[in-house]
């Protein structure tokens, strides 16, 4: 049970004893509840214990450097003397005195910090999660990455054995794959559970002892060993009623009886969020290289080894493998990656740099906000020149006044920062919940998920507050206190001039807004566009499940055909088909065959959504109701055809054949052109309607290539059922049970995965798109609002400053347009300069951003975004200037002269 303040013990000297200390507190907490204490009073006691430990830890850390506390440095003395309680009280009063400014500033800072901190916290949770295991930071993942497609390749059974046997910098190398299977215990109804088929080293690498019995042993992985099962604490409690004699009892998984050999302690869910573990029995001899189960490989860095040394050793092994097996490994590069990234499939070379760039860009949001606020604060500070002059005359040094004004900025920023942090935490929690809808997690949080506020996030927000105070407080304060005492006294009662700082601030904020907003707009539009991509078939009537055989090495053959036939006879099933992948059939880059049989490369990135390639059953299009536009469909003979017939969709024809005549055209995967075994040539025999449509952008629709596959060719397939009516309703109506019975009737060795509606994934995708879209909209509106507020402040000040001049000019008969022209000219010059600098910045940043993050280029129709943003900024500036300008025209000459 985690306490929300657990993280406090990560600082100070209590860090080293954190785990055992929290264990003691937990043990005592449970004992208290057993003795009859209320949950609330126990929680209060627990909180007190954690806070006390935190205080002791901080005290001990300070005592380690007693010199520091007894003899404060000059800087520390200075701060102690400068920032005083009266300063803070005065700041608070001034904030209340200007509620408009305080409100705009608070909202701006809160939104800015929420966005920055939210992005930071989410990125940290993905890139640098703390594995709550002993020396969890030394547990790593190993995977093969395809250097062309930049996707991980999980058919690594042979490589796993090589890595395990040869690597010395990584020890306890293990692997797992997860599957959904029917589990039946005693007379209870069978239920579908998620099971990890894992090597025994998974338990030793986690260094967690079993609660009862034993965990898996290497001998359990032998094919002739008795099937065994290890159960997690939660499953033991919920499904076995905490039966103390559960070890030794038997359960049925699929068709096989397994003996429970152990129960793992509470909280143990390695490798992801599992509660059931069976031994991984994958014999490399039974599979060709590049085939077999999809594995995640993990291990622990050996004592003294580092990420870099492990990567160097792995790269050497990878080069050797690539030269020995060029046909399967020419494009594969083995990488040592963070464990969590290999599970989510997000590991990628350079991802940390890309995220860092993104974090810097996102942080610019707050800089824009702060610059705008600086303008507003500066305007107010210059109105306070009289107060500053008097304080200076009474002996206050420049540092003293700057400190006072900085304290005001700090007071202004602190509460919004806390609010922003809370908003960010809320957003991160939502984002993680959406993120956990991925199939790999199955909707449940992985064991390393930590929703608590991380010290790194607090540190980042504190740094943001310092930057904000620097921009909002120190910058205007330095500017306002630059004049000498005599100058200040002399200016009592006269107007103040705004110098270059003001102009530079305006130019800078417009420039940053123009430079940063197009990237956000483009990202937002991309997300919204892809969110609009919808399947052209009735996705809500489709169910999907994985099918394979026990052991995963036998071809499905007639068993799959027979299952299809029997399912077809079910009254609520409208159609059944399957899809499967064959090794070496993926297409990353299209090369067309020229007239002379030569290869003609095409644009490597024709659609934003990429190319999807998979093998299909001969009646796939009938079941999906997808119309054939030209040519023919597959038939039974095609799967063995040496001409490699394929069917492509309309997107493919549009992207690669310029809508030309597709039938009979041949192409291959250009990405493998230089490898030992180039891709075969494929011949287009048919064209279908697209499987997905997008009402506004066809680039957001992937291009599909289908090749024929027969049940005799595959060991695993994805079964697709078109049911009558909503698919979700059939899950409750007993269809899954009938499906399992049918499969068991054909061959008890058939293993079925969990049945899910095809719309399941679709939902989490649209949620994600909505979250990103809403966040970006919030950012854009905030930035535009603050930019407009900044320009408004500039105009107001300009008008106020020139009242006398405007009055005289009006009295002398100057036409209104001349007066307006003189008022607007300064705004136009400054906003225009900012736009030019911003456009230059956006163009300069385009190349690194595109290569690092893969965002769309400033080319084609997308080039409109930048000038459009600039135009919006200009319009916002002039709209903001409209009110003050109108006031300027209404100034009566006599009043204007009187004010001076």
């Amino acid at each position, binding site marked *: *049970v985690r306490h929300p303040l657990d993280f406090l013990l990560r600082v100070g000297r209590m860090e080293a004893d954190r785990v055992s200390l929290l*264990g003691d507190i937990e043990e005592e907490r449970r004992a208290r509840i057993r003795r009859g204490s209320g949950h609330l009073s126990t929680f209060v006691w627990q909180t007190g214990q954690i806070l*006390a430990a935190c205080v002791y830890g901080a005290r001990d850390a300070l005592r380690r450097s007693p010199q520091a506390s007894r003899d404060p440095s000059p800087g520390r003395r200075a701060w102690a003397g400068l920032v005083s309680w009266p300063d803070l009280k005065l700041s608070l009063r001034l904030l209340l005195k200007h509620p408009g400014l305080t409100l705009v500033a608070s909202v701006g800072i809160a939104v800015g910090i929420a966005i920055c901190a939210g992005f930071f916290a989410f990125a940290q949770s993905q890139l640098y999660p703390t594995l709550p295991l*002993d020396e969890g930071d030394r547990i790593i993942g190993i995977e093969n990455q395809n250097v062309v497609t930049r996707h991980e390749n999980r058919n690594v059974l042979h490589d796993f054995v090589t890595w395990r046997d040869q690597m010395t910098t990584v020890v306890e190398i293990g692997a797992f794959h997860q599957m959904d299977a029917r589990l039946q215990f005693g007379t209870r109804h069978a239920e579908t559970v998620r099971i990890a088929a894992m090597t025994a080293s998974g338990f030793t690498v986690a260094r967690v*002892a079993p609660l009862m019995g034993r965990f898996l042993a290497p001998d359990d992985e032998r094919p002739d060993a008795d099937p065994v099962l290890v159960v997690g604490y939660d499953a033991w409690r919920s499904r076995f009623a905490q039966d103390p004699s559960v070890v030794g009892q038997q359960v049925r998984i699929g068709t096989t009886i397994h003996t429970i050999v152990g129960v793992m302690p509470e909280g143990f869910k390695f490798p992801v969020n599992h509660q059931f573990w069976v031994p991984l029995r994958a014999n490399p001899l039974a599979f060709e290289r590049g085939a077999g189960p999809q594995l995640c490989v993990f291990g622990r860095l050996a004592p003294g080894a580092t990420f870099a040394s492990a990567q160097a050793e792995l790269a050497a092994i990878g080069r050797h493998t690539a030269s020995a097996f060029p046909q399967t490994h020419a494009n594969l590069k083995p990488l040592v990656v963070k464990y969590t990234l290999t599970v989510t499939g997000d590991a990628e070379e350079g991802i940390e740099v890309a995220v860092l760039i993104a974090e810097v860009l996102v942080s610019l949001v707050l800089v824009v906000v702060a610059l705008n606020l600086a303008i507003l604060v500066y305007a107010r500070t210059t109105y306070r020149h009289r107060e500053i002059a008097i304080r200076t005359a009474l002996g206050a040094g420049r540092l003293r006044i700057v400190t006072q004004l900085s304290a005001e900025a700090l007071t202004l920023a602190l509460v919004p920062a806390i609010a922003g942090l809370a908003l960010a935490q809320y957003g991160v929690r939502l984002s993680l919940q959406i993120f956990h809808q991925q199939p790999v997690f199955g909707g449940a949080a992985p064991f390393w998920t930590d929703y608590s506020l991380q010290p790194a996030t607090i540190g980042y927000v504190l740094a943001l507050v310092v930057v904000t105070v620097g921009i909002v407080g120190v910058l205007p304060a330095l500017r306002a206190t630059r004049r000498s005492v005599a100058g200040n006294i002399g200016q009592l009662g006269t107007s103040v001039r705004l110098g270059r700082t003001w102009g530079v601030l305006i130019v800078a904020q417009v420039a940053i807004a123009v430079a940063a907003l197009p990237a956000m707009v483009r990202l937002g539009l991309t997300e919204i566009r892809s969110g609009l991509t919808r399947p052209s078939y009735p996705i809500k009537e489709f169910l999907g499940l994985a099918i394979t055989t026990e052991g995963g090495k036998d071809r499905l053959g007639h068993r799959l055909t027979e299952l299809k036939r029997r399912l077809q006879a079910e009254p609520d099933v409208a159609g059944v088909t399957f899809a499967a992948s064959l090794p070496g059939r993926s297409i990353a880059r299209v090369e067309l065959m020229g007239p002379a049989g030569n290869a003609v490369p095409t644009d490597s990135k024709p659609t934003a959504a990429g190319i999807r390639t998979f093998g299909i059953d001969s009646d796939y299009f009938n079941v999906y109701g997808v119309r054939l536009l030209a040519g023919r469909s597959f038939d039974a003979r095609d799967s063995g055809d040496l001409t490699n017939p394929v069917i492509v969709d309309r997107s493919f024809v549009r992207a690669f054949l310029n809508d030309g005549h597709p039938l009979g055209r041949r192409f291959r995967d250009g990405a493998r052109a230089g490898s030992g075994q180039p891709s075969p040539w494929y011949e287009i025999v048919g064209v279908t309607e697209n499987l997905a449509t997008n009402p506004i952008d066809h680039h957001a629709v992937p291009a599909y290539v289908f090749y024929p596959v027969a049940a005799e060719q595959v060991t695993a397939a994805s079964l697709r059922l078109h049911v009558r009516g909503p698919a979700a309703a059939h899950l409750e109506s007993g269809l899954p049970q009938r499906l399992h019975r049918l499969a068991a009737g054909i061959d008890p060795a058939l293993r079925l995965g969990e049945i899910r509606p095809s719309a399941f994934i679709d939902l989490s995708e649209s949620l994600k798109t909505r979250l990103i879209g809403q966040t970006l909209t919030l950012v854009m509106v905030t930035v535009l609002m603050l930019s407009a507020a900044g320009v408004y402040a500039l105009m107001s000040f300009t008008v106020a400053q020139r009242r006398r001049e405007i009055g005289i000019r009006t009295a002398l008969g100057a036409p209104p347009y001349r007066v307006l022209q003189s008022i607007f000219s300064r705004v136009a010059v400054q906003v225009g300069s900012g736009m030019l600098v911003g456009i230059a910045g956006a163009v300069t940043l385009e190349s690194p951003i595109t290569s690092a993050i893969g965002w769309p280029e400033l080319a084609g129709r997308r080039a409109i975004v930048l000038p459009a943003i600039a135009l919006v900024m200009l319009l916002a500036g002039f709209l903001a200037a409209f009110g003050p300008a109108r006031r300027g025209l209404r100034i009566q000459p006599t009043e204007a002269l009187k004010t001076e």
Partner: protein
Amino acid sequence: MADYLGEFEQLILLALARLGDDAYGVTIRETLVERTSRRPSFGAIYSTLRRMEDKGLVRSCLGQPEAVRGGRAKKHVALTPRGRAALREAHGAIVRMAEGVRGL
């Protein structure tokens, strides 16, 4: 020179001597609660143990994770010979000081 022990340090060392192999945060605290009527926080106990470990008076090792502790391991603590000597010395000093004093 013998190690100087504060009162709380003495109490914890005595608890360790009494508990033997079963000494860890919870049992140490229970012993102190039962025999001294004090209710020290775990933070105070761990802070004192760490200080005494730095001085070489006690040694510690991590045990196995247990479900009742939320899957967390115990930190077992034991007296070192130096700690035992320091305790003996401190206790002797108290006994010597108390000798002949009436009305205690």
